[in-house]
């Protein structure tokens, strides 16, 4: 089965073969066919390959592995394995309420037009801090803006478990208008809680 990744690598390799040919015999461009070859090898294919590669990187930047590949994010990854359903990220991750391979992105993107681009831009800021700044200690990492209920309601609004809850019904308007945060004290207030991971039990995962 040929995967998109295999096709991408094949496109890169065929482009490289054409380039080697042009490097060895640049005089090929004297003929009409040679000019077409040069246009394909030095313009069309490279632009296409770079665009495909860029898109592949953009897609990969959504993966949990990608987010957790930075050392400073390790405790946040660990918090997904906490054996306590009060831990909101852990409960979502372990029960596949979010795709396990895109867990961070699913909750930390903005569900609005161009929200994905905004999330990627924030990611670039993280990369900048990681390489050119001083990354804070994991416990000192906070969101740039308070967590928006919109991200929770993107999935939960209309779901039976949400709609049938008496608490949710009582404050439905406030929750939807973001006046009362889903993660406010007394509600779903245990999130990553990375400062206290030493005293918790961890789920060992599926056998």
């Amino acid at each position, binding site marked *: 089965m040929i995967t998109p990744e295999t096709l991408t690598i094949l496109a890169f390799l065929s482009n490289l073969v054409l380039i080697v040919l042009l490097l060895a015999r640049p005089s090929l461009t004297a003929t009409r066919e040679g000019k077409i070859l040069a246009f394909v090898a*030095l313009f069309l294919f490279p632009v296409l390959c770079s665009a495909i590669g860029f898109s592949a990187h953009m897609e990969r930047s959504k993966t949990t592995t990608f987010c957790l590949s930075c050392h400073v994010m390790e405790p946040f990854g660990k918090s997904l394995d906490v054996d306590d359903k009060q831990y909101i990220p852990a409960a979502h991750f372990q029960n596949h309420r979010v795709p396990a391979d895109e867990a961070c992105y699913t909750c930390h993107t903005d569900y609005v037009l161009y929200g994905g681009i905004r999330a990627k831009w924030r990611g670039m800021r993280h990369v900048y801090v990681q390489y050119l700044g001083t990354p804070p200690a994991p416990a000192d990492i906070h969101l740039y803006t308070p967590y928006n209920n919109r991200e929770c309601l993107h999935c939960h609004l209309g779901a039976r478990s949400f709609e049938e809850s008496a608490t949710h019904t009582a404050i439905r308007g406030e929750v939807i208008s973001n006046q009362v945060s889903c993660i406010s004290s007394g509600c779903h207030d245990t999130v990553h809680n990375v400062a206290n991971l030493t005293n918790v039990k961890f789920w060992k995962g599926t056998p």
Partner: protein
Amino acid sequence: MNGPGTPGSPSTPGAPSSIDRRVRIAAALVGAGLLVEIMVLRGEHPSAFLIFVLAGIPLVAAGVLVFLYSLVSAKD
């Protein structure tokens, strides 16, 4: 029909024409860029993305620009 400055034709026998030279430079730049890109294509770390964007894409872009320049600068 190939005179000096015509794509692929040497101005003096045996010497590469300016367009040949530019095509070679363009091919070398695009090739280097694609090699960088393919090496980090499967990388799962932000550094792979940075190398792709800060080294691979500029090399490819420079090669493409040199190639386009060789086209517009070629004398008919």
